[in-house]
């Protein structure tokens, strides 16, 4: 039994064959898992290029024998969803119009709140922090009916602005939590020195705290954007028809009844819908990581 596994035992007095077996086991298992993780992604990417004739014959899993970029164009601007045949583009734009403002606003507010709660503690500020953080754990279902009422009263039912409002308020809890936990690590002696120097609340924020913030702001923006873009429940309840975000549109697209399922076009559409957060992940992966390990330490 290979006991001396690679990492811990530099002396590695296990024989070379034992070491090699252990290495094979480890890398073999990792590769197996990696393939399982990559399978779905590979499937939709490859299928977005294949012809339907091939898919109908061979199923979704398999190496492509045909190649066409047509389906992408079809998915983007021509495919029929919810009655309209303008492709996934309008819904994609809806999601952009919803996610970008909501992300920016909730992050900005979260940063300021975090700054207040971390560096300007006053009586009751810890309770306030606990209260705001509670929002992270609340299930969306609790807020459905009240939001419906609020949006209705404000005249924002079925609008993108309504969704932006919802995501802002909901996101506030999360962004405040994140930013506050980060700002606590700024030594308060820095703030004290600035106050002695005569700086006030906003000046300290602008000149001292904000320049130190890029790490947490990037992480927060990435997590918020991903969360809001991928969100479904509120998207589907508080919008309809052509005003839906891309997640809701994808359900309508892939679950709608058609005579012949066009898997290639649907794959392309699904990919388009998944692309923004995926690209952010590809290029900003370590910020994801940082967010995870930081956020979990609460």
């Amino acid at each position, binding site marked *: 039994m290979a006991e001396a596994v690679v990492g811990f035992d530099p002396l590695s007095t296990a024989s070379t064959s034992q070491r090699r077996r252990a290495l094979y086991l480890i890398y073999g298992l990792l590769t197996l898992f990696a393939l399982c*993780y990559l399978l779905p992604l590979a499937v939709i990417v490859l299928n977005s290029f294949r012809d339907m004739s091939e898919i109908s014959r061979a199923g979704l899993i398999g190496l492509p024998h045909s190649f066409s970029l047509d389906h992408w164009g079809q998915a983007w601007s021509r495919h029929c969803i919810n009655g309209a045949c303008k492709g996934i583009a309008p819904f994609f734009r809806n999601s952009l119009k919803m996610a970008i403002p909501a992300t920016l606003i909730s992050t900005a507010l979260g940063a300021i709140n975090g700054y207040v709660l971390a560096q300007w503690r006053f009586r009751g500020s810890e309770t306030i922090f606990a209260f705001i953080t509670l929002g992270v754990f609340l*299930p969306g279902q609790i807020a*459905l*009916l*009240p939001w419906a009422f609020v949006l209705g009263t404000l005249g924002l039912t079925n609008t993108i602005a309504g969704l932006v409002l919802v995501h802002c308020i909901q996101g506030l809890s999360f962004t405040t939590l994140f930013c506050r936990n980060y700002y606590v690590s700024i030594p308060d002696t820095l703030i004290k020195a600035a106050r002695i120097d005569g700086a006030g609340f906003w000046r300290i924020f602008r000149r001292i705290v904000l320049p130190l913030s890029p790490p947490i702001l990037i992480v927060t923006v990435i997590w918020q954007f991903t969360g809001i873009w991928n969100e479904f*429940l509120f998207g589907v309840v508080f919008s309809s028809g052509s005003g839906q975000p891309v997640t809701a549109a994808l359900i309508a697209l892939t*679950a709608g009844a058609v005579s012949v399922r066009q898997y290639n076009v649907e794959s392309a559409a699904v990919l388009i819908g998944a692309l923004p957060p995926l690209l952010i992940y590809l290029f900003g992966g370590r910020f994801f990581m940082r967010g995870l390990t930081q956020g979990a330490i609460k």
Partner: protein
Amino acid sequence: MSSLPRAAPAAALPREPLRDRIARLMPQIVIAPSLLASFVYVFLFCAWTLYLSVSDSTLLPDFSFGGVKHYLALWQNRRWSIAYTNLFLFGSFYVTGALAVGLTLAILIDQRVRGEAVWRSIMLYPLAISFVVTGTVWRWLFSPTTGIQAFVRGLGWSDFAFDWILDRNMAIYTVVITGVWQASGFAMVLLLAGLRSVEPDLIKAAQIDGASMRRIYWKIVLPTIRPIIVAVVVILLQFAIKTFDLVVAQTGGGPGLATNVPAIYVYDLMFQRGQIAEGAAAAIMILAALAAVLVPYSIWSSVRARREAGHG
């Protein structure tokens, strides 16, 4: 006897100019809107939904008091019992599965493998994808005509059957698989951080003491990261209780009611069947389930933190 000169009686202090007062109270002023919004969102919305659940509302809110009849109706409802049984099944397998896979991967990667960043990126990317996308793609993969069954049959095993997603008894397990697929990378990252936080001297001491690697992991490493394991379990349980998107995308709750979960039932009641009071009651039940997980956990972890801070 004081030899200090007595101060003249204090004149009334000049009133603090408004500008200075605002500057002094700026933190409170700034946090107030968010506090208000959170108050509304956390407290008011909950109270609202709670009130609706005991009101007479059906299609539209009706604020006359109706008593707990909706809760009773809910718990006697067959669909609800199926939904929470499914949640129970799904939850236990999902949490155990994601934890097991996550822990395995974390231990594998902890063996100082090369290209760690690459492995991690591959395991973690599902987090960047919406449950809608995941559910849809896995639906296609589980579908006998287009997915795994078709593929394996195409390879030659023409008797191979894998139609769980159409099977009333097995459909819930397809959702489990997808859920584990999506969440295990997350579990892995947290557990890996935990493994790495184990003091290396502990391992060295155990090696000198003569323990095998297996024994070191089992008796030293895992017990030491128990708090992190618990935290991961709690987070996964929350994901499970809130599950909605995934099921909608993958099975729509079916076949029949086979994969119906409470979150879907809430949506159903509120927006499809015009029974918002009962829907509200179901939403409150979901909240209760979450509280049942979170409250003991936060008590446990603060007690533990206080106990360990009390000693050197």
